[in-house]
């Protein structure tokens, strides 16, 4: 991935997401997902453990989609759950939608984790209409995001430090405490954003002409990878369906 322009994998993900939006065929989705897992495992050297963990994160959501759809569509009744009918159409559509969740979400998270923010922003400033002011603001925000879990913990610690204690001597923060912490996170972020904006202004972020020291050109590798991934995806999606027959 270090040899690709960071916009290439991201563009592929978008194309994939858009294309899959029109697919409700379970077999095609299984084939497609298999191909994507192969691309991630071989192309990006993603380990089995990481792939498994990433899948697990989305399983509860996928199951929810399956269940709701199974009982909310008209079709031949397969089973009765109290007042609800599980239909064949419902199960088929639900399965396809649940699969679609995995197809779009897993590669997005895996690729996202491996995208270098600086390279991505540099590429976007070079090839997309992103101006330096916005680009560098996004980069500074990336650092703020990295600090955010810690800031959140500090705010909660401050709340627990002053909250009333329950009988066991543990602090009770309550929903209100969390809401205040969320507000604190927001206000603190705005203050810090103001300070960073000042620092960027002093350093001349608004310059009409600036040197782009870093470059992210597209290369033949980008075209090659894009072609292989897309052709493979089409084959994997269409192949099994044709083999199985309508």
């Amino acid at each position, binding site marked *: 991935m270090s040899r690709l322009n960071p916009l290439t994998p991201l563009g592929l993900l978008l194309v994939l997401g858009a294309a899959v939006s029109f697919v409700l065929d379970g077999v095609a989705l299984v084939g497609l997902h298999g191909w994507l897992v192969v691309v991630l495992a071989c192309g990006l050297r993603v380990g089995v453990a990481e792939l498994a963990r990433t899948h697990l994160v989305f399983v509860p959501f996928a199951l929810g*989609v399956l269940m709701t759809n199974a009982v909310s569509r008209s079709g031949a009744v397969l089973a009765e759950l109290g007042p609800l009918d599980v239909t064949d159409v419902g199960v088929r559509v639900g399965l396809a939608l649940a699969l679609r969740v995995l197809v779009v*979400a897993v*590669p*997005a998270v895996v690729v996202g984790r491996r995208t270098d923010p600086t390279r991505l922003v540099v590429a976007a400033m070079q090839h997309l209409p992103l101006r330096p002011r916005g680009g560098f603001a996004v980069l500074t925000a990336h650092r703020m*995001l990295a600090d955010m879990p810690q800031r959140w913990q500090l705010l909660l610690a401050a709340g627990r430090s002053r909250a009333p204690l329950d009988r066991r001597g543990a602090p009770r923060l309550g929903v209100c405490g969390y809401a205040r912490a969320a507000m604190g996170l927001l*206000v603190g972020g705005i203050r810090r954003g103001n300070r960073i904006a000042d620092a960027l202004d002093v350093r001349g972020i608004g310059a009409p002409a600036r040197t782009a020291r870093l470059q992210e050109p597209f290369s033949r590798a980008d075209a090659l990878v894009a072609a292989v991934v897309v052709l493979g995806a089409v084959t994997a999606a269409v192949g099994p369906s044709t083999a199985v027959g309508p």
Partner: protein
Amino acid sequence: MRARWKTRDVMLTVVLGVTFGFLYWALVQAWTALSVLAGPFGDLTQHVLLGGWLLVAPVAVAITRRPGSGVVAEVMASIVEVVFLGSPVGPMLLIAALLQGVGSELPFALTRYRRFGWGIYAVSGALGALLVFGFSAARAGWFGSDLLALRLGLQIASGVLLGGLLARVLVSALRRTGVLESFAIAREPAPART
């Protein structure tokens, strides 16, 4: 005079996007919990909480008064969700966020970023919810499902409450903290405290 984005406006919009992206993650946790509780109707809980996802756009617009700030903040938040926190909707969330942002910002744009009453916030939330509903419905094949009207009703109500009226409450709370002094919102007289 053309409204020029200052560095602070850009930073604020981006900061709002990132912070809400992070807080949305908390909302996702609530959503997961709620959908487990709701059993087979878990999928419906997304409509109840959808308005929360619309919140950032009207907040950004109201503070900076810059055309496009709502859309940018909303898309930033969705990038944070997809790339860093992981979203089951995947990269299509970016498109959904774009639609939400456009829907939420449209009422403010039509009034030339001059009116910020309760009504316009409510319309903003409703419009954002409606636009993203059309998108989701097409993707998930809700048309023809028994629950279409219920889904739509829940989603619009949530948009008005969480994505519209709550935004106004939040904006006035932020204004009272005094951290918005250098933004366009500070150039109009403070509203009476309610």
